[in-house]
């Protein structure tokens, strides 16, 4: 009994870890879409905001990328579904004898790296263009170097194979006797295809289309070569990552996740609905005609409606919601914190200056080196030789000590973060006079300990 509970617990734990692994990144990503810092982060939580959605909405690169991704996706769906359907019919119905050879040939593009497909598409259509006599600058040449054209072809060359696999699986359950029956009853081959095979393939066509669209939408390897001067969502995102990202990418991810969930719920709701209706029909009732019938015994439909309403309400709220106040508060808090640190540092410096007045060297540089000495090794406060060694390098511009001080503020554990200094520079002028005039608090023990603690 006990061991059973234990193994159950272990199993639950395993599931938890597994789903955390699966969903965790998505969850964190979604959170960062609503946090105000301009680098995607979930903690520290600053302000709840919708601004990244608006940034996303107004980001023309992403909008264009999505636009072209959708166009390419549609083109790829049309091309690869028809190619895949034709190939699967040839494979299963027309030439069953050459099946294995044909199969290998068609499946090959899946095994070839996308990069290779991208490059070879580019090269191949360039050659074809040349063969057809498309000169530099001619309309035909432009066509063969058109990014949309090339990307649709390049992606379809392997997405068609995915589609074919879907179709073959379905076709294997098709009774070719049905086509024969149709022919026998006077149908032409076209009619037999349209009225018998195509309706049978409809579910497979739907799933192959979704598959093809998603595969096209998320493709990068091939697209990056074939897209030429256009852009797709993936290429835009790749570019953004190179140049630095903001949470509008998280907002995009969140939108995509939401849409996916909605679509999945919708599909499931309609599937459940038709199953319910069939069951009702078998029972002999005429139920399912009313709208209320749609929701009866249909959990996904209810969820779908609830979620859609939630999305609409959220969008409405987002129009009015204004996090400015929170942001101002956070900004103020940050400023206060910075001020506090600066002050602490300055005080610690003063403390050292007055603690070592006997040093023969000029006052200011010495004070500087003292500050640094303190920063690097606060426990080694009177270590004069070491301090004077670092002094020459740091002393020449008189602001340098300020640098050191700020470095300490921004990265208390790590002085080498000197690059943070320019950011903080505007804050330094008010600090400077303070530095020069007030020796007042030098002996305040609290200040001194504050700096060494910060170290």
């Amino acid at each position: 009994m006990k061991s059973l509970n234990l193994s159950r617990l272990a199993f639950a734990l395993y599931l938890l870890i597994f789903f955390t692994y699966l969903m965790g990144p998505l969850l964190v990503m979604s959170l960062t879409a609503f946090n105000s810092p301009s680098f995607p982060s979930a903690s520290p939580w600053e302000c709840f905001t919708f601004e990244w959605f608006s940034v996303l909405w107004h980001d023309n690169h992403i909008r264009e990328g999505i636009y072209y991704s959708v166009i390419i996706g549609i083109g790829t769906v049309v091309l690869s579904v028809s190619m895949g359907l034709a190939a699967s019919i040839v494979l299963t119905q027309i030439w069953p004898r050459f099946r294995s050879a044909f199969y290998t040939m068609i499946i090959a593009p899946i095994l070839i790296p996308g990069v290779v497909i991208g490059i070879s598409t580019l090269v191949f259509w360039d050659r074809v263009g040349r063969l057809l006599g498309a000169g530099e600058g001619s309309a035909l040449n432009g066509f063969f170097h058109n990014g949309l054209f090339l990307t649709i072809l390049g992606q379809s060359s392997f997405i068609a194979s995915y589609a074919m696999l879907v179709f073959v699986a379905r076709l294997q359950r098709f009774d070719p006797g049905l086509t024969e029956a149709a022919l026998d009853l006077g149908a032409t081959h076209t009619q037999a295809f349209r009225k018998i095979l195509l309706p049978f393939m409809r579910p497979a066509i739907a799933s192959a289309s979704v598959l093809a669209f998603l595969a096209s939408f998320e493709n990068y390897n091939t697209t990056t070569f074939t897209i030429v001067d256009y852009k797709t969502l993936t290429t835009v995102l790749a570019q953004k990552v190179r140049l630095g990202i903001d949470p509008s990418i998280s907002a995009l991810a969140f939108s995509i996740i939401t849409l996916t969930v909605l679509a999945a719920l919708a599909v499931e709701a309609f599937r459940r609905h038709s199953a319910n209706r069939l069951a009702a029909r078998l029972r002999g009732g005429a139920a399912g005609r009313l709208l209320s019938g749609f929701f009866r015994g249909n959990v996904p439909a209810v969820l779908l409606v609830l979620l859609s309403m939630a999305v609409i309400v959220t969008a409405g709220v987002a129009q009015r919601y204004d996090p400015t106040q929170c942001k101002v508060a956070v900004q103020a808090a940050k400023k206060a914190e910075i001020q506090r640190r600066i002050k602490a540092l300055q005080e610690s410096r003063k403390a050292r200056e007055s603690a070592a007045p006997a040093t023969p060297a000029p006052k200011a540089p010495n004070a500087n080196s003292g500050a640094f000495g303190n920063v690097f090794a606060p426990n080694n406060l009177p270590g004069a030789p070491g301090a004077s060694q670092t002094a020459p390098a740091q002393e020449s511009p008189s602001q340098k000590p300020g640098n050191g001080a700020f470095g300490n503020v921004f990265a208390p554990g790590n002085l080498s973060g000197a690059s943070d200094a320019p950011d903080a520079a505007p804050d330094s002028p008010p600090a400077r006079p303070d530095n020069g005039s007030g020796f007042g608090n030098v002996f305040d023990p609290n200040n001194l300990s504050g700096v060494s603690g910060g170290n």
Partner: protein
Amino acid sequence: MGSGVAVNLENVWIKFGDFVAVRDANVSINGGDFFSFLGPSGCGKTTILRAVSGFLSPSQGRVLIGGKDMAGIGPNRRPTALIFQNLALFPLMKVWENITFSMEVKGASAAERRKRADELLDMIALGGQGDKLPSELSGGQKQRVAIARALCASPDVLLLDEPLSALDLKLRQHMRTELRAIQQRVGITFIYITHDQGEALTMSDNVAVMKAGVIDQIGTGRDVYDLPSTAFVASFVGENNMFRGKILRIDGDSAQVDVAGIGPLVGRISPAASAQLDAGDEAMIFIRPEALAPGEGEAGRTLNATVVNEEFEGNAFTVYLDAGGNAEIRMSLANTGQHRIAERGSRMALHFPAGKAVVVPVGELASE
């Protein structure tokens, strides 16, 4: 009959690669006939039917429907309708759409089709069930829908490929009479395929018996049963007792065969068989169990055997006898109220009427 459209096969060969599925078939089917192809599984019945309906073309020879050579005419332009071995109802269409598919492809309006479907549904006693899907029907109902669908195309020739084989015995017997009745009502030519000889004999005007791609005999059910022309036909159609021996002499349509351990027996011989046989040749003589009766008969129509066993079968007894060395003999006697024909192990004489034994050349027997 004679009102329907005739179907003729002239020297038809059908090959799949090196394999000969049909060898030199010559069949002439009268218009309006119920014609059956009877043969064991794999003998090429479906193949012949597919050649008639146009799904494959003969490697040699001609298929004529209504006197017209069908070479180069596809299945959708032949005046035939095929009822498939597995029915092949369209699973995604409702029953009424299934039935009127042939009208749909010709562009008939939905109202027109619906009306015709209702007529046909009434004919097959499925009125009001037109809106079901085929998967919602029973086996026998599907069967009838398939028949209605084929009839809706108004074919001149209806081809049926073992349509009853999937049904249980009761339903099969019921459908037999129903099919025959439909055929007589619509008056078109039916070509029916079966490996069930009872089915072939009860329904058909004429039967062709096939064995491994060869048509052994064509004739009425009675011809095939009473005067089989080969050992295969004799053993495949109905029960039979077979004896092997040497031909002593052939005299017109009768032949005398000397059977080892039994003595000379006289049987009928068909002209075809007598053309192949001469005195001194090995031959087979077949006698039906129900032709045998206890008691002495004329010379050449009597044999002696030992009783081995007796089985009661309700309407008849089957008596198993041993004629020494040879295979066992079966005798079927009508149940007339008497019991115990003979003691087990006792020796008795059997006789059979003139013309009830048949002499054929030695050949392969049906292995069933």
